[in-house]
């Protein structure tokens, strides 16, 4: 009886874990604005609130702030970036203070809510690239996906 209850509790916890997202306050966010959209119309985009997510390319610690270069992907229903979809362009994220680069490491997924503060000219390889710059209000670092998350195994057993 107790065992069954425990199993049920574990089930609920697991299901709950699947649904957990950043839980951001997304009021005032312009969901139609993508990084590419900012690059093509930077004047109109300045000051707009965005909810973007993607994979970290690099994290740089400056004297009193942290900068992150991110490849944006569309977000799913839990605001998690879908990094098997077509990317929406790169952007730079700026955050006051220190973010641990070993945690905010290359390849990790984040979702951020913040304000577009402008664009910055940079380069990808030898190609010029205009990065939209976002001042972060809140950043969510998604837990690392270690080997597939929840797995459903079906065991078939026979014994002699």
């Amino acid at each position, binding site marked *: 009886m107790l065992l069954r209850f425990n*199993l049920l509790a*574990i*089930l609920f916890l*697991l299901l709950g874990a699947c649904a957990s997202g950043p839980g951001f306050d997304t009021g005032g966010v312009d969901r139609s604005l993508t990084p590419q959209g900012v690059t093509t119309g930077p004047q109109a985009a300045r000051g707009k609130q965005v909810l973007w997510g993607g994979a970290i390319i690099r994290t*740089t*610690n*400056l*004297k*009193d702030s*942290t900068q992150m270069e991110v490849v944006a992907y569309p977000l799913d229903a839990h605001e998690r970036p879908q990094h098997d979809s077509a990317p929406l362009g790169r952007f730079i994220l700026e955050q006051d203070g*220190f973010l*641990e*680069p*070993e*945690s905010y490491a290359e390849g990790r997924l984040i979702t951020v809510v913040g304000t577009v503060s402008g664009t910055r000219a940079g380069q990808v390889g030898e190609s010029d690239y205009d990065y939209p710059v976002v001042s972060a209000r809140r950043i969510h*670092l998604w*837990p*690392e996906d*270690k*080997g*597939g*998350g*929840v*797995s*459903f*195994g*079906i*065991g*078939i*057993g*026979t*014994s*002699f």
Partner: protein
Amino acid sequence: MPCHVAQYGFVLLLTLLVSACASQVPPLIREAPADSPSLAQVRAHAADYLGRQVRWGGTIIETGNRENATRLTVLGRPLYKAGEPEATDDSAGRFIAIVPEFLDPEVYAPERQVTVTGTLLRTEAGKVGEYPYTYPVVQVEAWYLWPVVSEQPYGYPDPWWYDPWYYRPWYGPWYPYGYPYRYRQ
């Protein structure tokens, strides 16, 4: 009677496997020193805790070999009761552990999990990128490098996994002759 040899060998193997589960972790790592300050407390007010015993652990960032010692830069993580770092992004920050002997940097490599016990010696000013960073420094007395292979491949017990042989290993598919290759004569 080859089948008895096989059975005996199987039991011996089982005993070996079971004893492999027994802990190799040093007692100083398994049990936290009494009244040991957390990394978060020390990073906030290091001066209050100098000379105190700490047990900290986490992920190795860098291993530096000095003449008679090894300096580990570690990203601290919360520890389970038995001293193993949790697999989480929740970190109170970095610290430096000075181990009084040579540790091979190919073994004590980045991403490996380590737990140390020792005395809080001092703090050291360094930089992460351009950001000024104050590292607590621990003079290590005992340490343990956690094995890479986790016992739970998914990080938690898989509630749907059921091993049909688990409760009666001696009735496994090879019963009663044992595993057909190893003990063949």
